[in-house]
């Protein structure tokens, strides 16, 4: 059930040697874990199918073979058990990197994540930190069957104590996963599954941006499009199309969902005076609500129009054959922007 969009077998077995030139996001993530395993003996990786198989998306391919079964292994099939044991391991000095196979299959671990992972440091007055990374292949766009395309970010970002990040490209995937593993705070690491196999030749330029900073991935003057994970590509395409019409869109890739980079976003909105946020998850109470609310709170008098939300509808993620009607796309975004009273 789990592998609707598995890669071709050549790509699968590819476990690249170095991080400098990642080709796909899956390869970049694999490199990040490989390098972390090499550098820090306390890093361990476990979860469902992450060992022998290398994960249903092959992101951990080759790691068990290369580092041995006491560093990378297949656990019993129980998500609460995976998170719960990771907590105990972290208390003893390990740095577990665990995988939830899909967003919806992290829900059995909800209590362990919300009541323990997120709160342990606080309840012990800072004495016990939990350096755990919870990797989740997130969102839709691959024609996954039921329960395989959820976007769970709003559940995690509302939970104090969690850090939530999501890369949109291979270079970020590498540097952000390294930083997440190095962080003493627990990190929910959302990997846009539709991007695993998109190749991107771009090399990371210079020092990578810290994990908690947003990036302006395209500059513009008229509108700020706020995107993250799988919607960054959509925003960039939208900006491209809009440029033809003379509309200059600045695209922000949030990268970090919690904390939120108010500075970068605020600066952009003060420049453009208009903002819209795009995500796949349902709109009601979605992450975009927080973005709209806080941008409005902070930049109300710079805003020429309300912050728009172009998101999934308030329905369960649709069946594969209908997902195109649900996912935000450039035409829909441009139509939404056109509802603003531009001459107001």
């Amino acid at each position, binding site marked *: 059930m789990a592998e609707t969009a598995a890669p071709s077998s050549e790509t699968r077995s590819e476990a690249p040697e170095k991080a400098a030139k990642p080709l796909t996001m899956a390869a970049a993530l694999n490199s990040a874990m490989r390098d972390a395993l090499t550098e820090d003996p306390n890093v361990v990786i476990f979860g469902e199918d992450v060992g022998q198989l290398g994960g249903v998306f092959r992101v951990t391919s080759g790691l068990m073979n290369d580092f041995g079964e006491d560093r990378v292994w297949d656990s*019993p099939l129980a998500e609460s058990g995976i998170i719960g044991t990771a907590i105990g391991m972290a208390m003893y000095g390990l740095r577990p990197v665990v995988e939830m196979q899909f967003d919806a*299959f992290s829900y059995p671990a909800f209590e362990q994540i919300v009541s323990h992972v997120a709160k342990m440091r606080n309840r012990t007055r800072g004495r016990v930190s939990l350096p755990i990374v919870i990797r989740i292949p997130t969102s839709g766009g691959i024609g996954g069957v039921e329960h395989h395309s959820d976007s769970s970010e709003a559940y995690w970002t509302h939970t104090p104590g969690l850090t939530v990040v999501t890369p949109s490209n291979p270079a970020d995937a590498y540097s952000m996963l390294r930083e997440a593993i190095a962080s003493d705070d627990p990190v929910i690491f959302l990997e846009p599954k539709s991007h695993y196999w998109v190749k991107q030749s771009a090399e990371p330029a210079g020092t990578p941006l810290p994990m908690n900073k947003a990036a302006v991935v395209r500059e513009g003057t008229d509108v700020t499009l706020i995107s993250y994970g799988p919607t960054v590509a959509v925003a960039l395409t939208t900006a491209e199309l809009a440029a033809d019409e003379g509309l200059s869109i600045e695209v922000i890739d949030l990268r970090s969902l919690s904390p939120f980079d108010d500075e970068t976003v605020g600066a952009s909105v003060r420049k453009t005076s208009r903002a819209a946020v795009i995500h796949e998850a349902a709109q009601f109470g979605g992450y975009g609500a927080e973005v709209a609310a806080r941008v409005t709170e902070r930049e109300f008098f710079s805003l020429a129009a309300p912050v728009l939300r172009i998101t999934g*509808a*308030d329905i369960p993620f649709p069946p594969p054959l209908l997902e195109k009607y649900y996912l935000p796309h450039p035409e829909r975004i441009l*139509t939404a922007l*056109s509802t603003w009273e531009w001459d107001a």
Partner: protein
Amino acid sequence: MSLTEESHAPAELPEAEAFTLIDADGNAVPVQQRRGYELPDLDMLKELYRRMVIARRWETQVTALTRQGRLSTYPSARGQEASEIGTVMAMQETDWLFPTYRDSIAVGTRGVVTAELLSGFRGNWHCGWDPNEHRIAPQATPLATQILHAVGLATAAKLKGDPIATVAFIGDGATSEGDAHEGFNFAGVWQAPTVFIIQNNQFAISVPIAKQTRARMLADKAVGYGIPGYHVDGNDVAAVYAVVSEALERARGGGGPTIIECLTYRIDPHTNSDDPSRYRDAADVEAWKTRDPVTRLEHYLKSEGALDDELRQSIEDESERIAAAMRDAMNQEPALDPMELFEHVYNEPRASLVEQRDALKAELDDANAHVHTHTHTHVEKRNS
């Protein structure tokens, strides 16, 4: 009536050896090894054979179509036909089935037609049939969750005084989930008329059963719930049918739940997109093929003179017809109405969903009106 009794069940270990009536070579085991069970009669065995042949042919066809891209994904039960068919053939019409993604042939054997059955795997609406009409819940993907539903429905029936039972399929890997425990436990405490069929096909995707439990076998879990547990040769449809029939009768008669572990093997990949060469030996697969459920029953029926060439041919012809009909059904493009996405979320209409539906409608109308032009041309930056 109270659901729980003060008395607790006595503890008994299940028999270690998987129970078999017809062995891998197609021979009936000696009467003294039958643990008091009867072989199903020849008519039933022929029917079980017919259903397994049809199911395998049908599923072979589905797998072929999936390879051609006509389905989003498909998890095949090849090799598990005895567990699947033996179980549902033991059920009465009024019993309810709670299947997983693995159990399409069980659903089909209970009468759901292909177009409805494969709706979800084609990428259309998740559950294509009417659960109330067939007394079959939607195939569950979130592992182990469905067994609680089965226990709940069984308990409701018990409370209403209806003499029915429910059957829940669950995989070996899924027994590691918390919900498996809660399902077994609620069933024990409430003495719910539910029969749990653990299909131990020895893998959870790539993870072998040795990494799921340290127990001698999964049937041993029954002890912890005060429930009778059985370890059955899941490739012997006669044994499956006999043990499940007995358990269902016990359940319907107020005797409570049963856990039955069917020891079997997943011959095909986990789904079409899985690559088992990464985690298991082809030799193991070959070894398990010698214990094939269909071949062994065929041998037995032949040896009993109950399956001549004519009957065999007619069953094969029937299977081909069904496979062909199935292919045709899959060649028909499903009717898709994006507006329907907003229709079923709630009973009570919601203004906000109507707004969202109307927005999609406008978008689609607009796209139709502007075919070949960009819909975004009306975005005009008038100011700023």
